[in-house]
């Protein structure tokens, strides 16, 4: 016998006596703790993965400063400007192959600290250990058009460092390639556009400027001797101490001119966004699952405590205070929770580890003791909080409940009950019991409604993702696009030389690459549509948007600010003609009104693939090639809207009103006061248009060329409507009918069939080497990424629906189980008066069916609401899961119910009706 009967001792005794009952609870607690602990684990995984990706792609440093050998870094370090001691790359030479100096690389060695910061990724081989050995980044090899085997010798042209830059004497140098490294310079280059360092070309005084001439992508060992007369130049790698940034800004100006500041958010790290998206999805999922599990725990606790109401009432009758009840039963919860913690945290840990492993090398999970403790803490806290609500309810139980259900009696007395003279017992009992147990029914209905809603939306979203994969598949494999396109001029005039476009020769080089089957270029220029007489509203809206806008959605027109309101805005904007327009009109000698737009020349193949977007007419490639016809891309109805901010300024946007989702995307959601002017398309198939091309060769002199063409087809805008109410499409040959030759803005590359899978990475590298400074987009890898995203979404949505369903089923089943246990005596009574098992089962079946029906209706109502108002998914959902899922849940609950009832019925009637 225990000498002191403490609350812990009572809790332990209770746990011992009710082992079987606590099994379900323990499983629920473990689940909840797995998900709760998963939240910090997933979050940590996301942060670590993002950091790891940044480290692998850019290195661990914030700054790289070139040509720093004469600077007193020690002094700066003593001032605490750096987080840790800077590291240095010692550049020995700049090397290249053939004539392509700008595609070469600096060669140097890294000291131990720089090595730590630069964080090189060895893909093949090893780091150089002896003089004469070299390790080179894969992209640098590709740029130099080298495809050497490991341990083979590579020979390069080079200029040697002279202590300030590079000397003028060219010399050949040979190394044994011992390692191929992951790309870093390629990624850093995006952030180093302004660091143009001259590389001399021999003694003739010629030089080539390249942005990363002192950023090594090829490394030798520290013992590598520099040729006589040469002197190493140093590039410093460091992380700035954010608290001492002020000291750093006093660095000599050359540091600023020759440094790269690394922004990990850079667009070159698109995968970082993928990591964040996937991880945040999982964090959200884990949070939701944890919340649901906590809800489940609260429900199981509630059922458990409800079953033990008489026991609690007895404690109360014996003088236990509410706090003592809370203490005793709270300790039970804490003890189970503590017992479940190691298993839960371990399962959660391995779950996240498994997830990271499944997601590939981009995902890393680096747990530490603090993180594990945080996971355990979050888990325990979530369980205790979820147990607290039913515990507080239990502590309020009146001592009368030791004798009979006072609360129930009170509720019964508050209701008027009319006797039924002819009734179906199960139906009547279901009705009466449902009436009195409404909170449980309501909570089940809500969760079930959410399940139905989430499943409809989730499956709808999955179907959408699947369709997106189809939409991404293009008739080509790669796209080469200028990373920054400045436009061709002032929207009326094409100014040549503003952009470094792709020439025909460069396109030809691309076609000569191995495995390339075909290339398709896209050209683009501004063209003016000349209108005699009054300009239709459709074009006015387009013109206003195009001429005055600085961006699509948010801009201010200073001259109109303060004057504009909802009533006068349309008249006012028509009264303000753009001065640029007037100047151009005069210079070009236009007597008509000119509406500028883009003339986009696409490959015939791409235009042919637009068949499904045709609203009227027919795409005739021959007529397009001959310049006889053009295609007009114009929505059937557009809306130009202006939103007024509180200060009288505004923002505007253009909507394609022929698309349902466009109507909702903007117009329905904003609370700002807005006005919208709409116009129907003014284009017809067969209509003749006069297109005028203005070209400025850079001297300021305009050349004008007019052509009259027919509209062959009218197409609608693609997936995204970017505010261009109309544009003109033709083929590259069609654009060639104008005398002015334009270079390619984009190039599309098609590989020989089935080769992309094997050579995707090499092809990207080859294209990057051929077109430095351009964005290379691999549709093959994009489709792969979308497929991966689809699979992740499938797993996430599937888990979400499964857990939602499991929670709903568990809520219903726990409710039914508790009701059956609690109503054991009623069951015994019914049996004693002749009710069969079927009669008893029906009493509960009707309740389950009722709850599931209401939950389903609730969920479907939510779907209907979403369909009407498009808040979450733009109305994209699938209905069948909302019907199938409840049916499955109903089935599972019915089976569970029969098992539970049979368990009670297995006992004799006397055991059923025996008093406690």
């Amino acid at each position, binding site marked *: 016998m225990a000498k002191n009967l403490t609350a812990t001792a009572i809790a332990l005794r209770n746990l011992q006596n009710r082992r079987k009952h606590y099994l379900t609870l323990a499983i629920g607690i473990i689940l909840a703790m797995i998900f709760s602990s998963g939240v910090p684990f997933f979050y940590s995984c996301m942060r670590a993965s993002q950091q790891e990706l940044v480290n692998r792609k850019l290195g661990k440093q914030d700054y790289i400063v070139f040509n720093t050998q004469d600077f007193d870094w020690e002094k700066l370090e003593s001032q605490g400007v750096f987080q840790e001691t800077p590291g240095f790359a010692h550049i020995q030479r700049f090397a290249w192959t053939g004539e392509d100096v700008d595609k070469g690389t600096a060669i140097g060695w890294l000291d131990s600290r720089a090595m730590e910061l630069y964080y090189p990724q060895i893909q093949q081989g090893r780091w150089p250990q002896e003089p004469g050995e070299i390790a080179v980044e894969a992209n640098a090899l590709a740029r130099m058009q080298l495809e050497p085997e490991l341990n083979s010798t590579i020979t390069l042209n080079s200029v040697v460092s002279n202590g300030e830059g590079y000397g003028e004497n060219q010399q050949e140098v040979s190394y044994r390639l011992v390692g191929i490294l992951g790309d870093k310079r390629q990624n850093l280059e995006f952030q180093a556009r302004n660091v143009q360092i001259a590389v001399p070309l021999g003694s003739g005084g010629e030089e080539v400027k390249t942005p990363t001439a002192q950023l090594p992508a090829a490394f030798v060992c520290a013992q590598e001797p520099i040729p006589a007369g040469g002197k190493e130049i140093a590039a410093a790698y460091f992380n700035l101490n954010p608290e001492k940034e002020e000291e750093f800004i006093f660095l000599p100006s050359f540091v600023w001119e020759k440094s790269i500041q690394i922004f990990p958010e850079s667009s070159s790290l698109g995968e970082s966004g993928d990591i964040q998206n996937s991880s945040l999805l999982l964090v959200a999922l884990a949070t939701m699952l944890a919340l649901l599990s906590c809800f489940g725990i609260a429900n199981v606790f509630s059922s458990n405590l409800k079953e033990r109401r008489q026991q609690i009432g007895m404690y109360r009758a014996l003088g236990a205070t509410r706090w003592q009840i809370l203490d005793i039963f709270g300790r039970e919860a804490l003890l189970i929770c503590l017992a479940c913690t190691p298993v839960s945290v371990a399962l959660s840990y391995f779950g996240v580890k498994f997830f990271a492993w499944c997601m590939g090398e981009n995902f890393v999970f680096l747990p530490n003791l603090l993180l594990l403790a945080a996971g355990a803490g979050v888990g325990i806290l979530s369980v205790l909080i979820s147990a607290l609500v039913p515990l507080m309810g239990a502590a309020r139980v009146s001592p009368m409940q030791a004798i009979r259900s006072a609360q129930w009696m009170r509720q019964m007395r508050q209701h008027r009950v009319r006797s039924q003279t002819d009734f179906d017992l199960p139906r009547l009992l279901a009705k009466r019991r449902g009436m009195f147990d409404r909170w449980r029914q309501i909570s089940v209905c809500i969760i079930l409604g959410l399940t139905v809603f989430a499943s409809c939306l989730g499956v709808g979203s999955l179907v959408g993702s699947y369709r997106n994969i189809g939409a991404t598949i293009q008739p080509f494999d790669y796209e080469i696009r200028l990373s920054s396109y400045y436009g061709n001029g002032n929207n009326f005039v094409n100014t040549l030389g503003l952009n470094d476009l792709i020439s025909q020769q460069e396109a030809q080089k691309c076609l000569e690459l191995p495995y390339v089957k075909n290339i398709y270029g896209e050209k683009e220029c501004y063209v003016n549509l000349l209108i005699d007489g009054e300009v239709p509203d459709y074009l006015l809206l387009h013109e206003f948007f195009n001429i005055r806008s600085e961006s699509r959605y948010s801009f201010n027109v200073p001259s109109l600010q303060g004057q504009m309101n909802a009533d006068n805005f349309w008249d006012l904007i028509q009264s303000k003609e753009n001065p640029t327009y007037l100047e151009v009109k005069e210079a070009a000698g236009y007597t008509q009104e000119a509406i500028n737009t883009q003339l986009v020349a696409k490959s015939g193949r791409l235009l042919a693939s637009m068949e499904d977007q045709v609203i009227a007419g027919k795409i005739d490639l021959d007529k397009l090639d001959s310049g006889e016809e053009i295609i007009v891309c114009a929505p059937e109805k557009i809306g130009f809207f202006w939103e007024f901010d509180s200060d009288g300024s505004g923002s505007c946007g253009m909507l394609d009103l022929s698309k349902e989702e466009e109507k909702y995307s903007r117009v329905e959601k904003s609370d700002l006061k807005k006005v919208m002017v709409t116009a129907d398309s003014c284009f017809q198939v067969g209509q003749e248009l006069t297109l005028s091309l203005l070209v400025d060769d850079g001297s300021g002199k305009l050349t004008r060329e007019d052509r009259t063409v027919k509209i062959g087809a009218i197409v609608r805008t693609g997936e995204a409507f970017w505010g261009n109410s109309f544009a003109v499409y033709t083929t590259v040959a069609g654009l060639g009918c104008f005398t002015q030759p334009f270079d390619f803005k984009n190039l599309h590359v098609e590989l020989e069939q089935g080769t992309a899978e094997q050579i995707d990475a090499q092809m990207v590298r080859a294209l990057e080497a051929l077109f430095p400074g351009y964005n290379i987009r691999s549709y093959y890898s994009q489709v792969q990424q979308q497929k991966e995203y689809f699979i992740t979404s499938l797993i996430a949505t599937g888990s979400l629906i499964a857990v939602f369903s499991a929670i709903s089923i568990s809520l219903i089943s726990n409710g039914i189980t508790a009701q059956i246990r609690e109503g054991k005596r009623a069951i015994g009574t019914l049996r*004693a008066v002749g009710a*069969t098992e079927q009669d008893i089962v029906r009493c509960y079946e009707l309740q389950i069916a009722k709850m599931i029906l209401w939950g389903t209706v609730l969920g479907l109502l939510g779907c209907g609401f979403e369909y009407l108002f498009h808040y979450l998914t733009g109305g994209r959902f699938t209905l069948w899961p909302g019907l199938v899922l409840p049916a499955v849940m109903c089935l599972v609950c019915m089976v569970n119910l029969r098992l539970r009832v049979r368990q009670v019925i297995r006992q004799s009637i006397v055991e059923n009706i025996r008093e406690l």
Partner: protein
Amino acid sequence: MKILECQDLTKEYLSGETVVKAVDHVNLSFEQGEFCAITGPSGSGKSTLLHLMGALEHPTSGSVLYGGQTLASYTDHQLSILRRRRFGFVFQAYNLVQELTGYENILLPVMLDHKKPDEEYLRQVIDILGIEDRLGHLPSAMSGGQQQRIAIARALANRPSILFADEPTGNLDGKSGREVLSLLKYAGKQLGITLILVTHDQHVAEQAQRILTIEDGTIVTDTKFGVM
């Protein structure tokens, strides 16, 4: 005419590792319309015997015969139908269904049998028991005596052949107990029902035509009196 018969009826329970014989090789029979009281000290097995005869529990060995047919040959479903049509039960703790009103509790066996209630007969029962004014109330709004009357009315609703009453007055005060007992006797007599009643109260037992005394699961005396 024998309506119910026990042949070598035995019921054993396991209490820890010890086997307890609650009913030990009992042989008995009851005539149609008989009023019999089973009495004995606490734990003697009188309630268990009643439960076995009422098909609320299965015997360990031996058999109960109703109308000459052993209950062991009945399926669970058939036993349910037997209980709802031929047997009526009155428990010490009333055992009314809390969600149903007094009248609905009375109708319960009729409704389970999917029959139309015989309103005239039920009116007669209700009149006999004097529960007219409690029919629309839920059990929680009734006193113990009122609940027990409803329980008796429920037991009589399907015109049973046998009415089993387990300590029907045990939870009632003296006056209510006496009233309930009189009503049971009166109803039994009026409706020609066999009444088998378990009690440890000697005064209650003395009201019966026949008194069975049970000790340690065995019938020790079986005393029959004249018509009362």
